[in-house]
């Protein structure tokens, strides 16, 4: 059941017509992709994610080693045979002009239709199933260029599904999307794998989303090295943090997201609970305060969160005075002022 659909042995990928005749991007890759799993290829910009995916889909020549798909070497596939195995969704937005959703998704049947692209009843049925799977049935007659970016990307995924591939390969399908679009496309890929048994391999920069969705990561370092594993394992082992390490940015392994390493020098103690506390803490950290629990209330500033039925208030107490704020915007602008004064005084 869970045999690898795709396996690479000592794979070397890169470009052939670069300035040095051969430009190797990554080498010694031993990867496998199991049937029905959802794998996210993640790594910093320029690590070579696209190059790897393009090599796997036959769009770039393989420089060394082997790629095996369904037990057969990639080089032995004709374009058409490969189209039965792998279908793709690429990063760049398409420009097809006036074409209906139905017409575009129907292109997924190209490997199955003849010279004149005559669609059988069964072909149309598969097109409809693909549209259903991505959740855009009812859009059939709408024009591609009138859709939102997110909808358009789903149509491209439907087209790839209509090709009935064994593996779906997507190259940063969320790159041009707004946040809701990203969440929705990522969820869709998750569902295709978990509910429809599709094997999905995608590259992405949306690490938060990927971490919550992927069965496994192919974690690619800037040097082109790839570590495979469940996202959580990669965090626990520290590989994830190491590969994404940057100045001033750190991965918060408790919350599972990246944050700006704002090591505040000012301390403030915070009294309050619930959502208001969480978001107050974030606001305070953003402007460079370190938040202390109320137990160790030895800070020069104390903030109390007060709530009635409707509204939230913030009360700031320093040694001499006490002030009340009705929004975090007011609170933070006051505190910024306070902080600057403090720095001036100490100089």
């Amino acid at each position, binding site marked *: 059941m869970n045999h690898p659909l795709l396996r690479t042995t000592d794979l070397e990928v890169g470009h052939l017509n670069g300035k040095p005749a051969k430009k190797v991007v990554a080498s010694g890759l031993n990867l496998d992709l199991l049937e029905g799993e959802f794998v996210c290829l993640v790594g910093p910009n320029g690590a070579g994610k696209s190059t790897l995916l393009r090599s796997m*889909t*036959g*769009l770039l020549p393989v420089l060394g080693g082997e790629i095996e798909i369904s037990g057969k070497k990639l080089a032995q596939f*004709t*374009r*058409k*045979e*490969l*189209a*039965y195995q*792998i*279908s*793709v969704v*690429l990063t*760049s937005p*398409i*420009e*097809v*002009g*006036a*074409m209906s959703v*139905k*017409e*575009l998704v*129907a*292109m*997924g049947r*190209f*490997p199955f*239709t003849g*010279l*004149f*692209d005559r*669609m059988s*009843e069964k072909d*149309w*049925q*598969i*097109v*409809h*199933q693909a549209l*259903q*799977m991505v959740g855009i*049935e009812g859009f*059939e007659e709408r024009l591609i*260029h009138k859709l939102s970016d997110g909808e358009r990307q789903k149509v491209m995924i439907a087209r790839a599904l209509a*090709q009935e591939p064994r593996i779906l390969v997507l190259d940063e399908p969320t790159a041009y999307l707004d946040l809701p679009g990203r969440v929705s496309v990522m969820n869709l890929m998750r569902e295709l794998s978990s509910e*429809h*048994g599709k094997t999905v391999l995608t590259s992405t920069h949306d690490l938060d989303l990927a971490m919550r969705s992927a069965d496994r990561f192919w974690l690619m370092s800037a040097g082109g090295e790839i570590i495979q594993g469940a996202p959580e394992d990669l965090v626990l082992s520290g590989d994830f943090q190491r590969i994404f390490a940057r100045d001033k940015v750190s991965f918060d392994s408790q919350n599972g997201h990246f944050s700006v390493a704002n090591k505040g020098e000012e301390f403030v103690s915070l009294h309050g609970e619930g959502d208001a506390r969480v978001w107050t803490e974030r606001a305070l950290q953003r402007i460079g305060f370190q938040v202390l629990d109320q137990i160790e209330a030895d800070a020069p500033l104390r903030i109390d969160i007060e709530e009635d039925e409707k509204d939230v208030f913030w009360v700031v107490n320093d040694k001499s005075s006490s002030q009340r704020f009705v929004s975090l915007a007011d609170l933070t602008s006051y505190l910024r002022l306070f902080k600057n004064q403090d720095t001036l005084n100490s100089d």
Partner: protein
Amino acid sequence: MMQQDQLKSKPQAIKGSRLWLFALLFFLLLVVVGLNLSYGSVKIPLGDILKMLTGQEGVKESWAYIIQNYRLPKIATAILAGIALSASGLQMQTMFRNPLADPFILGINSGASLGVALAIMGASLAGGLFVPALNAAGGLGLILAASIGAGLVMGLILLVGKRVNNPTSLLILGLMFGHATSALVSLLIYFSAPEKVKAYNIWSYGAFSGVTWEQLHLFFPVILVALGILFFLPKGLNGLLLGEDYAKTMGLNVDRLRLLILLSASILSGTVTAFCGPIGFIGVAVPHIARNIFKTSNHKLLIPAVILIGAVVAVTADLIAQLPGSQFVLPINVITSLFGAPFVLWIVLKRKRGAASFNV
């Protein structure tokens, strides 16, 4: 696995409204052909034309002669040329993924011009070596010269185009090819006898009227063969709309496809240029008119659409060139450029307003 569900879908068919549009265009073609038969230096009433065409007696002999030996072959030529240029332009725009592409703009017709200039003027320079061969072959020599010229430039553009994936660079490239070939043509003109130069100049103004029935025996089948190639390409052209990468992963043989497009488009544009001269703007404008009228970029519809619209536009351009009611006939290139240039400008401005290149 996928569940089988009952959702039935209607097979994709040409919708009723589109069929109606085709009928309307065909009717329009009949109208402009009728007007073109009737108007000219001599006005011939439509009734007499119908009489003549249906083989009835009682038509003035001189009129019958004009219709048969002048206007009918001219209209047939215009229809063929309009179809060929439009079909060629459509293929170029899809292949280069550029809404402004057409054989003329990419310098392919300049290649044809150079071929023809060499055939007309180069022959004398080479000491009359080719003249007998050209004369013996009749129109074939010119077709060959123009097609070879067009094919060479297009091959060069494709070769470089493989490295430069930027449409703007390609257009500049085409422009530069155009300049280079016109420099060579100027050189030929400089060293040639005035009557040869005049022959070349007349050719370069463009005309549908110089083509005889005999030459049409050659013109027609050549265009038909090139259109025959195009007949097999709608699927591939639709695939190219998504870009070459997508086309490849859908199992299309993109290299072969590109070669077939090159073949069809260069034969179409090269042949028209050989017989009628370098006729501009029809090739770039008609595909856009077709996309606008039919609201589609599906080549299964666009190909028959550009064929019909191309014929209508070319016959209409010829009609206008005669300045109905006067004795003057303007070169066809003057008409296509006068009406075509603002149209192309309009396409560019429309794009600037944020519409994607092929959108209507």
